[in-house]
């Protein structure tokens, strides 16, 4: 019955590796988001997709690439991981752009 799910929950990897985080929502929402939460709990939007179309692309290094195969899925691929990429990444979805957002449980990424 999970509304927004993410895998994996934890990801520990070495600098330079490439990794992906997957997100799925079963709410029938049109809009999905990726956020990064740093160690001080500050949340910053990275990307947003509406019906598989990229609508928000914040100032994020191009090592980060989102992919939305369908409107229920939004994956995040990260190339050449750096120490500063260590954070918790949250996926979220909303009915439309003006609604409250439903967040996934987060993926804690640790780059060593």
């Amino acid at each position, binding site marked *: 019955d999970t509304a927004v799910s993410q895998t994996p929950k934890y990801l520990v990897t070495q600098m330079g590796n490439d990794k992906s985080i997957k997100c799925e929502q079963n709410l029938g929402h049109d809009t999905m988001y990726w956020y990064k939460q740093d160690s001080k*709990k500050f*949340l910053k939007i990275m990307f947003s997709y509406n019906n598989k179309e990229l609508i928000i692309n914040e100032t994020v290094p191009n090592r980060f690439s989102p992919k939305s195969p369908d409107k229920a899925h939004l994956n995040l691929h990260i190339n050449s991981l750096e120490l500063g990429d260590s954070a918790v990444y949250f996926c979220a979805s909303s009915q439309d752009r003006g609604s*409250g*957002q*439903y967040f996934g449980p987060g993926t804690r990424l640790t780059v060593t």
Partner: protein
Amino acid sequence: SQQGEEDPQALSIQEGENATMNCSYKTSINNLQWYRQNSGRGLVHLILIRSNEREKHSGRLRVTLDTSKKSSSLLITASRAADTASYFCATSAGGWGKLQFGAGTQVVVTP
């Protein structure tokens, strides 16, 4: 840049007391939202107040919005230990649903 700034950064109260936290923002908004985050978990949407609304209630939560002062407050009445969490305000402006979050208020409710 951060849009919302929350005050206080941390709040410690006893069960049964009320908790009030404030959020100030800088630019015009479409709506303002409050979220709760329990330790190690995702955010949970609590309440959304639109720019043309002044007050909204949901259970023990009361949110006010003063667009002239660019500020909002969240009141939790009769707090419980389960209310222990971080509370974030987030503003939405423009047409894309982009939320800008404040740094959060950490609330601890002791039995």
